[in-house]
């Protein structure tokens, strides 16, 4: 199997505090991979380490076979890794249009950015309607759409998603996952971190369980959903 991203034995954390104590995952192209685990298990830290907001202390991260663990997020975005952080994931005082422009920064050429925006507007007409509005005044669902749109401006190969369903209404969550699915159909790979994992697991091709900064389990999404131990320890009931 070809690997798109390979994280091998990564140690990482904030300052003196180590959160990840040797985590390894791998993702094949066009996969949706989900990571679940309790609070403080290091899921978000893993995403931040992959995207480069935190530099790993040890271990290797390979993207298309080349080592990227020392690189800055700016570079990684240019290589095709998009990241949507948890919660605050848009620029509230910039307009919708400007948000998208910012997302397109790595494209460089203004005409390419313009084209990308046009495509985005076709896909999400709601954003076109709101393009002059400050992003901060959008509704929760619209913000989430904008975040996704911003991240897909560069047609990324890999999208890292941190808790996309946090604080969202069930309907919006459903919509969100439909979007993820359709973007995936078009060729993008997803790595999703989720707390309330049932929906994500149903969608995911494969999934990992992380606990206390270590790999616990790895299986297909379905497999984990039906794993008694996982049910008991991580999904509740």
């Amino acid at each position, binding site marked *: 199997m070809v690997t798109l991203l390979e994280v091998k034995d990564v140690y990482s954390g904030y300052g003196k505090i180590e959160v990840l104590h040797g985590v390894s995952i791998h993702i094949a192209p066009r996969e949706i991979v989900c990571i679940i685990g309790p609070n403080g298990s290091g899921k978000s830290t893993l995403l931040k380490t992959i995207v480069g907001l935190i530099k790993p202390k040890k271990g290797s991260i390979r993207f298309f076979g080349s080592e990227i663990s020392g690189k800055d997020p700016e570079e990684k975005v240019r290589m095709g890794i998009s990241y949507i952080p948890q919660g605050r994931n848009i620029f509230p005082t910039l307009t919708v249009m400007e948000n998208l422009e910012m997302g397109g920064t790595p494209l460089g050429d203004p005409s390419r950015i313009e084209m990308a925006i046009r495509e985005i507007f076709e896909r999400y007409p709601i954003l076109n309607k709101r393009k002059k509005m400050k992003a901060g005044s959008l509704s*929760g669902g619209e913000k989430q759409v904008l975040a996704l749109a911003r991240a897909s401006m560069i047609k990324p190969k890999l999208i890292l998603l941190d808790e996309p369903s946090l604080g969202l209404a*069930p309907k919006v969550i459903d919509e969100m996952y439909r979007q993820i699915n359709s973007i995936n159909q078009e060729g993008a790979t997803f790595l999703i971190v989720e707390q309330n994992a049932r929906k994500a697991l149903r969608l995911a091709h494969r999934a990992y369980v992380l606990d206390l900064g270590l790999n616990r389990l790895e299986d297909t999404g379905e497999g984990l959903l039906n794993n008694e131990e996982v049910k008991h320890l991580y999904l509740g009931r």
Partner: protein
Amino acid sequence: MIETRGLSKSFGGIQAVSNCTFALKDHAITGLIGPNGSGKTTLFNLITGFIPPDRGEIYFKGKRIDGLLPHEVAIGGIVRTFQITRVLPRMTVMENMLIAPPRQTGEKFRSLWFNPKTIRKEERENRKKALELIDLVGLSHLKDQFAQNLSYGQQKLLELARGLMANPSMILLDEPTAGINPIMIRTIMELITKMKEWGMVFFIIEHNMDVIIELCGWIFVLDNGEKIAEGRPKEIQNNPRVIEAYLGI
């Protein structure tokens, strides 16, 4: 317990809550659901006095409370928690608990010098109660830790225990299970149930329908600042308007 009449609030032309009239009956746990931006948190802010309403009235136990300052509302018996936890980070878990009881004698400058005995007695009692509650939420081994060193879930538990420590007649919980892993959600739900048995009254905003359905005796649904439905969990789950606006298929 709580009753609102024609409650309205808008921010910069956007109607966050419009003409909301409802009454919380004597159900121990009432839920409040609705899409993002439907005005749930604004409603909480209005009830607790954090934001003054543009129009409308709020009653608590028959007494009018709109126009009161938030700390007055809190002293009146309504304590709330927040969507994102608000523990006092550089204070210990114990201190976080001890801050909660309202109107402590020791908070008055004069009593420090003229009433030290009363203060000591109060402190002793509060400490005892705090220990019990910390124990209840399973944080007793962390009582001398700074709250900032707790995990997110533990902070949520602390916030809940602190709310109880204030000895309110009612607690408003804003998304008590958001960002918490399912196991911890269980713990919190059990806790809420236990407190219900002790006679505490809750009003909960929550997106996790499993939690809402299991806990609540009555549910209100908001959409675009308006109440679109209320009823028992079963009725709400099957209400077409609610499905259309919120639950989805």
